[in-house]
């Protein structure tokens, strides 16, 4: 497999830089700044220190013994990104990008957020680095994730409700692009997933690939061999890309991205861009999108706000077309069941997003040999979802 993206930011036909002219010079500047920073020894040392002392890395690779016994198939490991500072893998990316923003001399940070995890991770590093953060969040998501809104505000960020379109992540990204194009001179757009125009999908992948690098080392140590299967949930796809990327050349390692099937792929609105979408252009990149036959983007739906996006990172589209990774979808109901099962068997309450990955493992692990090894990326913890989960289970909290 060639090293991608190419010089035009392409993963095969996907990716690229589909933006208005005003943003092109800013993206070129970002590309240059990142190219020099990623090789900078001081930067690497600073980021490593922050990962260790601030973000709580490395995160454990935990052998889920009771879950494995329950399923009666492969040995299941959980990569515990839920133990990261702020409760999800998002901090890996925001720490890297805030150093990039600082190097570029930008004093104002904007970001979109769906579940609120990226918003919280952005507000966190903005507080740490003493810069202003403004977070765009769909009003529908604000309603679903009140706790994260409060966390962002407590951390000193301003949260802007977005009332346009479906009032979720897609629309929050539109508003971020509008803010950025307006305030291009002093503002850094801290993109939260492996999406957006080049070079964002690369930057986010690179910062998140700490997940896969650690997991690869850890599983080799624990099992003396590479895993047979990696499983991660995919909305924009940053936790999955971070897990998959360091294993791409290990051809024996199968990789499965789990999209959100919402109410069901046929029954109903969902967020399964690769499983049920087609190639198109949105938010600066060409990728699989949920859209109608005229190229108008459809609204996505998932119980997990972090997966509620009608597109996907371009590198996932490429991995799908090449057959290097496979993509499946899990319904809201399956995710809720997986969340409860993992809570009871392992004492770990996963985020609804991560519960999609767990749900897929529940399906495939029983049919695998006992000596097979599966690594599930537990990308975030479930605290933020408790009011929503309680609501779905008919419990008042």
């Amino acid at each position, binding site marked *: 497999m060639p090293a991608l993206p190419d010089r035009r930011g392409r993963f095969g036909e996907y990716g690229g*830089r589909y933006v208005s*002219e005003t943003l092109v010079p800013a993206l070129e500047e970002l590309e240059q700044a990142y190219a020099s920073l990623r090789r900078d020894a001081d930067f690497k040392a600073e980021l490593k220190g922050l990962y260790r002392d601030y973000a709580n890395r490395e995160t454990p690779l935990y052998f889920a013994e009771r879950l494995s016994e329950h399923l009666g198939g492969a040995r299941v490991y959980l990569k515990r990104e839920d133990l990261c500072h702020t409760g999800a893998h998002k901090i890996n990316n925001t720490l890297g990008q805030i150093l990039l923003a600082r190097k570029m001399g930008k004093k104002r940070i904007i970001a979109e957020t769906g579940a609120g995890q990226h918003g919280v991770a952005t507000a966190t590093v903005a507080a740490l680095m003493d810069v202003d953060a403004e977070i765009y969040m769909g009003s529908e998501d604000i309603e679903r994730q009140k706790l994260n809104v409060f966390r962002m505000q407590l951390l000193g960020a301003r949260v802007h409700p977005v009332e346009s379109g479906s009032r979720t992540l897609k629309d929050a990204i539109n508003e971020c692009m509008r803010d950025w194009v307006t305030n291009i001179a002093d503002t850094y757009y801290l993109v939260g997933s492996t999406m957006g125009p080049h070079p964002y999908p690369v930057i986010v992948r690179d910062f998140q690939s700490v997940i896969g690098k650690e997991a690869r080392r850890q599983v080799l140590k624990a099992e003396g061999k590479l895993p047979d299967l990696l499983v991660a949930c995919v909305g924009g796809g940053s936790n999955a890309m971070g897990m998959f990327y360091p294993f791409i050349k290990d051809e024996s390692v199968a990789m499965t991205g789990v999209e959100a099937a919402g109410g069901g792929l046929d029954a109903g609105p969902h967020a399964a861009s690769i499983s049920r979408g087609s190639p198109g252009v949105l938010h*600066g990149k060409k990728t699989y999108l949920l859209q109608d036959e005229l190229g*108008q983007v459809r609204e996505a739906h998932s119980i997990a706000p972090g997966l509620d996006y009608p597109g996907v990172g371009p590198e996932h589209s490429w991995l799908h077309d090449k057959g290097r990774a496979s993509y499946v979808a899990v319904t809201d109901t399956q995710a809720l069941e997986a969340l409860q099962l993992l809570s009871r068997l392992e004492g770990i309450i996963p985020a609804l997003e991560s519960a999609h990955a767990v749900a897929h493992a529940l399906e495939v692990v029983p049919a695998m040999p006992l000596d097979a090894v599966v690594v599930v990326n537990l990308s975030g913890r479930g605290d933020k979802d408790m009011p929503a989960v309680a609501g779905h289970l008919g419990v008042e909290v």
Partner: protein
Amino acid sequence: MARGKKRIKRCLDKLSAEGRTALVPFFSVGDPGIDETHDAVLAAVDAGADIIELGVPFSDPMADGPVIQASSQRALEAGTSLHGILEMVASLRARTDVPLVLFGYYNPFFHYGEEAFARDAASAGADGVLCVDLPPEEARGMVAACRSNGMDRIFLLAPTSDDSRIKAVSRCSSGFVYFVSVTGVTGARSSLSANVSAKVARVRELCDLPVGVGFGISTPEQAHAVAGYADLVIVGSALVKTMHEAGATRCAAEAGRFVSDLRRGIDG
């Protein structure tokens, strides 16, 4: 269509010879309905519009402010499609020789198919296309399709474009280049930045094509000021807002009145 006979060039050459500036209104096609847009375009031409921009609605108009966002949404809810817009173009072409430029976001064009779009648009009588989110680097297919079908390719330049960028964008463009007057989204501004004219002068030094200026222009006074240094004055959100406030039965007449005020502003 043979080179040299293109409507946009013919129109701009003629105005240039007369020492006049082109007035280019933008219509959000399909808001409130495609028939209303059709009639409003004809009213605008009667009122002195030189070139017409036809906005193709998109679900996620990232470069647009609230007025065009809301209008695009209404147009989509009314069932507006690129196919329907090309039918409207053919009907307009039977009634007027005014140059017609399709203006939108790339995804609906990508879905139509670049070659099919350029062929069908040219045969309907459209003269050019501008995709906001398709910079020259991503536009090879669209440029080739337009070239082989005699359609002009209009690209944006921005306050952030440096000399090398201005040259690169100019090389891919034909008809005119569209200078975005502000860093920001579409929509009326109370005042335009003072250095727009200097930047446009720089574009002129590096680019042989006529230079249009748009984004933020809403009043006859602003149009007059911009006409002092631009070859084309492009007005969008203010017209869209005027038509929306006028309602379906009055929007064509109001579009005509609005354009005639701008015309007087530019010429006055």
